[in-house]
């Protein structure tokens, strides 16, 4: 079981589903969410600058990422996340794109990011999580 995972999606129902399905499958102890890329980055910023004072906070081990989001989309988030500022988090985490897109360009683009380990179609389901468990070996 993973310690913590992060779901980034602008759709509250998707987030709710993620929480429910993940908690059912005992995939992770803790699920945190963000409404878009920027909010996720803010979260990482907070982690970064509060780390020293308090006890070591948990870093998300897996990120479920939507692509089409307002304010900051999935691709933009990834560009920031994998750039120098967040390496301590990006090195610790894998990303799974969870989207309803069918644009082949998105699929092709996903292959260019080594941090993306899979590209899955919504909705998140129990069999999907079972498959992921096997894949990342937990």
């Amino acid at each position, binding site marked *: 079981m993973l310690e913590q995972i992060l779901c980034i999606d602008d*759709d509250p129902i*998707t987030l709710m*589903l993620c929480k429910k399905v993940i908690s059912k499958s005992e995939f992770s102890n803790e699920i945190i969410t963000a409404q878009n890329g920027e909010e996720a980055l803010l979260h990482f910023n907070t982690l970064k600058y509060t780390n020293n004072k308090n006890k070591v906070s948990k870093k998300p081990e897996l990120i479920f990422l939507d692509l089409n989001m307002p304010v900051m989309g999935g691709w933009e988030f990834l560009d920031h996340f994998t750039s120098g500022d967040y390496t301590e988090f990006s090195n610790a985490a894998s990303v799974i794109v969870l989207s*309803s897109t*069918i644009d*082949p360009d998105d699929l092709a683009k996903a292959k260019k990011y080594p941090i993306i380990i899979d590209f899955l179609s919504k*909705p*998140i389901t129990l069999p999907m999580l079972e498959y992921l468990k096997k894949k990342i070996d937990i």
Partner: protein
Amino acid sequence: MKSKTLQITLIYIIISLFMTIICHKLLTIYFSPTENYNLFLAKDIFFILATGLVFKYILSKNEVKNKSVFEKLKQTNEEIKESNEKYDIVAKATSDTIWDWKIQEDSISWNRGIEGIFGYNQEDVGKTSKWWFDKIHPEDSIRMSIKLYSFIEQKTEKWQDQYRFRCADGTYKYVLDRGFLLKDEKGRAIRMIGAIQDITKQKEEEQRLKLLETVITQSKDSILITEANSVARRIPKIVYVNPAFSQMSGYQSNEIIGKSPNIFKGPKSDSEELKKLLRAIKNEEECLIETISYTKQKEEFWVRFSMIPIFNNEGVISHWISIQRDITDEKKLETEKEHLIRELTQNNKDLKQFSYITSHNLRAPLSNLIGLLNLIEDIPVENTELEEIIAGFTKSTHLLNETINDLVKVIIIKDNPSMQKEEVSLQEVFENVFSQLSFQIELHKPIIKLKFDRVPLLNTNKAYIESILLNLLTNSIKYKSENRKLKISIMAEQIDHKAILTFKDNGIGIDLERNRDKVFGLYQRFHNYPDSKGLGLYLVKSQVETMGGTISIESEVNKGTTFTITFKN
């Protein structure tokens, strides 16, 4: 000669003396000798000697005269001989055919040229002028004889004429005939001598050149010829323009000859193209440019302008030939076409993007619905009515999801004109397809006949060919006849560079008379079966065509259906 005169004189004297002595002897025998006998004899002898002397004188005079006449005669003879020899040599040496016509007697003679050039044997050659006239081409003979007789009647000064002369083999040669008259003391024409020159080659060349010239004069393309050398980085001066050029540019040839084609340049001309042209001229290379040019009236037009250097035998450039075409209309069309293509490409791109966004926006809430329904599954429902409602809800949601997924499939196929192809083993493809359909195959146990050893490998997209065969096989099973056992035969053949796949069943068939144009349409259904969506054949056709293939159908109601798929292979 001298001795001969003397000889004759001496013989005369001797005979005379002899005669005199005999006469005197006879006289003395028959008549009584007179005392004057000796005197008479002496007188006779004196006479004889005197006449002998006179005789000799006359003879020698005559001799001198004769001699000079003889000398003259000899000289004349020699001259004639030499002249004859010269004539013979010239007649032999010249390639001309020489004729000699005695007009009064109408007798004509020919030199060897008549044989050498026209192929007539000496014995075939007629002796009169009629033979000559007969050989002249009918179209030329009247004109020729009018000119000839007016010359003989001395109405004209000179005579030369061109006409066609028939050879022994029946063909005609163009000849140039030149002649002169010999007149008698009264000034009448008695003899005419002429020389015929074979000008067939020149004439043919002339006609060929005339024909070639028509290419230039009749051409719809403008043609101009310029000098070899340019002055001060200008295009060389024009020496010739054809009528089409005047038509295009508005300049008459006399206005433009001697000027440089630079005068067609104007504010909108493409200076880069002109530079390219000048560079080519400097390097003596041919060149093709397109630019806006200006007519005499300063109207602009698009011209495609070529310059080709012409080199002489020494490899030195002698002229430039330029061919020009007004391509204003072409350019206009091209621009319109480009504009249209740009617009279409943009529209297409927009539509594609729109379809992605729409499908995404439809799929997002739908996937939520499915996710939520998945969660409900685990919650026990007490209320039976609610359970029923949830069941209906679940069914509709999944149906909606399927439809959207199908549409997405179509969009992706349509958007993927250049998908990956690989060498695919048909055997393997069928194994995959059968394993996916194993449940149905187990259920209905169709007789399936496969024959594709002729095409073991097919260069195609694996996913597509699987999808195609899966759809066709599913259809065959779905639309099988209830009255007979389902038989399916699948055959692959290779013909030239084409692989032909024939897929045949004995199912219920489709009424093609009513539905031929709809068979492969989207959401076209021909049987009211609950799980028929009208998508399968549409997908099949899309996939076949995306891979550059074709598909056709033959079907008869209650007999069966045959699909023929052709791929390049």
